[in-house]
């Protein structure tokens, strides 16, 4: 054991190593703080929904109460849905800075609503967020390179390598010890702050252990690469240059090249074309005989077909029926769009098996529930909720029941996953 403490003392006497480890620790802590701040900002925005919503719905109720028309209630009630960040989201913000996590929907056509974005500053999103995943994927390898690139070549350049090789077992144990020590210290520098933040955020033990394992695997990949380059008997300078070049290719260039390749290989129909088609269907309904619209709607939703026939006057059940017809007419293309996005995402993640940088990023965002899969799952929850809302209002509209102020409290509310009872 004393050999190890001796090695540690040696390492910590090297200024570069100490500065490097301290810098990495500072960056890790800063990234964790930035990620946590962003997540608590998002939580605060979600927590502020009920108050704002209550005010809004009260005003709608005041207005609707005059006519007691369920159609007006459906038309004017914008109902909130949200996607609360998972406990681990602070470590990998993923798409949460560009995809909306709060979306209000009403009982009209969903395809015209579900792709709406929230306000975000694109110039801030462009470079990507400064979170733990960034520090791990982009910066940690540079520290591995800085600390380990000259383990052998440094000794050679200092003229000690011959002496080392003359030691029993050729000094290999010594070099292995040094490598392990450096890797261990780097791992601790990343993992300890992460674990404290994760425990504080209430991340499950399984996920903490998994991330700790991901960190060590990723570090080991870079250490292995460094050791391999070190075996080539080049100078320290050549090692450092080669490794920095590899870093550039593995972390920056290859993913961007792959991005171009994937987008070309997996064409995705433009989402805006779905919105355009849906709008055409919806608006054409104003000029098609209303009975045709209702016939189409009743064929798909026979439970309402016993409703009274339409009179001459405008009736919201017709309006909402053609909105739903519009959604259903583009359902196939909406599914195809979604499938296309999933194929692109799957291709990106498959690349993670070859490119550790991509793999780690994909794994972390998957664990944190901040990737495209999570975004699509949120869309699914919105769709389910929207169906409940529609059916709730239909129950009044198709039976011509009056909608009173008290009925506003019965409108289904959005439920978060895991909180369904």
């Amino acid at each position: 054991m004393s050999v190890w403490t001796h090695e540690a003392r040696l390492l910590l006497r090297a200024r570069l190593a100490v500065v490097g480890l301290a810098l990495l620790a500072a960056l890790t802590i800063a990234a964790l703080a930035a990620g946590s701040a962003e997540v608590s900002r998002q939580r605060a925005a979600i927590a502020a929904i009920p108050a704002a919503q209550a005010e809004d719905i009260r005003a709608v109720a005041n207005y609707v109460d005059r006519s007691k028309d369920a159609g007006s209630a459906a038309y004017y009630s914008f109902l909130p849905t949200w996607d609360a960040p998972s406990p681990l989201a602070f470590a990998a913000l993923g798409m949460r800075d560009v995809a909306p996590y709060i979306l209000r929907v009403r009982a009209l056509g969903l395809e015209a609503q579900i792709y709406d974005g929230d306000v975000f500053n694109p110039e801030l999103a462009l470079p990507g967020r400064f979170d733990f995943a960034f520090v791990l994927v982009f910066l940690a390898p540079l520290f591995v390179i800085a600390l380990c690139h000259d383990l052998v070549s440094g000794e050679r350049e200092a003229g000690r390598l011959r002496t080392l090789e003359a030691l029993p077992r050729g000094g290999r144990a010594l070099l292995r010890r040094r490598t392990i020590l450096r890797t261990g210290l780097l791992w601790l520098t990343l993992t300890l702050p992460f674990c404290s933040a994760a425990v504080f955020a209430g991340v499950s033990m399984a996920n903490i252990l998994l991330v700790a394992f991901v960190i060590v695997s990723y570090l080991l990949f870079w250490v292995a690469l460094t050791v391999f380059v070190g075996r080539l008997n080049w100078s320290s300078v050549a090692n450092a240059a080669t490794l920095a070049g590899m870093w550039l290719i593995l972390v920056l260039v290859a993913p961007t090249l792959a991005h171009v390749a994937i987008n070309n290989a997996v064409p995705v129909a433009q989402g805006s074309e779905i919105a355009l088609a849906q709008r055409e269907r919806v608006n054409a309904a104003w000029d098609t005989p209303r009975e045709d619209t209702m016939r189409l709607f009743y064929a798909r939703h026979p439970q309402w077909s016993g409703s009274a026939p339409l009179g001459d006057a405008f009736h919201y059940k017709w309006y909402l029926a053609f909105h739903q017809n519009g959604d259903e007419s583009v359902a196939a293309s909406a599914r195809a769009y979604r499938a296309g996005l999933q194929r692109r995402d799957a291709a990106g993640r498959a690349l993670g098996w070859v490119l550790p940088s991509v793999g780690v990023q994909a794994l972390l965002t998957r664990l944190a529930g901040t990737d495209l899969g999570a975004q699509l799952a949120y869309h699914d929850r919105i769709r389910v909720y929207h169906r409940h809302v529609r059916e709730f209002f239909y129950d009044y509209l198709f039976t011509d029941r009056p909608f009173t102020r008290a009925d506003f409290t019965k409108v289904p509310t959005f439920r978060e996953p895991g909180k369904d009872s």
Partner: protein
Amino acid sequence: MSLVGLIARDELRLMGRNRVAVIAFALLVLLTLAAVASSWSHHRAVTQLRARQQHTAEAAFDAQPDRHPHRMVHYGTFIYRPPAPLAAFDPGIDAFTGNSMFLEGHRQNTANFGDVQQSSLLVRFGQLTPAFVLQVVAPLLLIFLGFGALSRETERGTLRLLLLHGATRWQVVGGKLLAMGVVAVVAGLPATLGLALIAAQHGALVLPMLVIVLGYSTYLALWAVLIVLVSALVRHSRDALLALVALWAVAIVLLPRVAPDVASAAVPLRNKLQTEVAIARDLRTLGDTHNPDDPYYAAFKQATLRRYGVARVEELPVNYKGVLAVEGERLTSELFDRYAAESFAAQGRQNALVRAVGVLSPAIALRSLSMAAAGTDYAGHRRFLEQAEAYRYALVQRLNRMQAENVTYAADVAQGADADRRKRISGRNWGEMPDFAYRVPEGEALAAAAVPELLILSAWVALALMLLVYATRRLGARR
């Protein structure tokens, strides 16, 4: 040949003998060509796609049947932002902003369907564009080629020999700088050619292109000076390399990510839900068109009746419902504009903060310069949003005026079987509405927006040169 030239030639010959350096250089050229080709084909595809979609949307609008004008207000229209001509060189935030927008009455919609939501997670690693290659990859290549320029000579004692043979320190440093300059020019050449090819397709925009070329030249020159400077300051090549790579990582990889976090923490943005609720609240205090006893609209009605000198809305020569629609849209749009302006201002402050960090990181300064000159920065997006809103407002009000003038009040309030037909006006009207035409900003304006960053970069070069003068004086001194 002068001594400076000889030293430069010698340095270049040494680089040429370094096989790794040659391979790296070849890779850079290939990468640039790939970036130019892919960026260019993407740009062309996107331009065609958006033009086609715009055309489809316009044709659909024009082909609408006879309708009540207010139906058309709700039918609305889709518009698409054509990519900026220089977006093929630097697409900036194009992938992050939605590029299509649905315009309708009573609502200001967001621009939706940005590429970032339609791509794999890889888009967050950066995009392969000529700008990316020049901003990120080229400096690292220069570092690999040049870190040893002076430190190697110091390390091996050859500097002393050179000085003993009568070369001055200035000549040595000048020679190395010249060599780095040649490398930088060659490294930047493929992308510049690509830019020229891209721009040749569009003509014009000479000024922004000049600013871009000037900006990138200054940036690469800065790295050349910095590399020679660090190489002169340290005793070992290894230290020079580590210091330069660290500098590169901080300036190009770290700071551009940290700055936005600082900005978004310092300047909060109101989200859409908050904005919508606040607008609804303000609207309620303004007045309620549906409430016959509403004080604001009662007063408005009186004023309208007085203006036409009649006693009842039925006697007005125009359709009061249309007049009301015009007034309602005016009021709501004023509110929308106020909240939009607030959001624009907040985002502008955030971007200004990031640009302030650009004083510390030349990479941020260059990125801002490049996007501003290419017209793909936030200001460019805002230009689109503002033109879209102006168009939306004009379109909706035109339709509302049609309701006021071409639909009679009697028909508009009529109920019964035949009422719907009488409310409609000819579908020929829709074809006469002007189409959305995105006005491209003037080249002068684009170039002017990039000037502050050009100054920052120049100041950096000046500072680096001053430090180099200081380092040169001490070069070769016994330490």
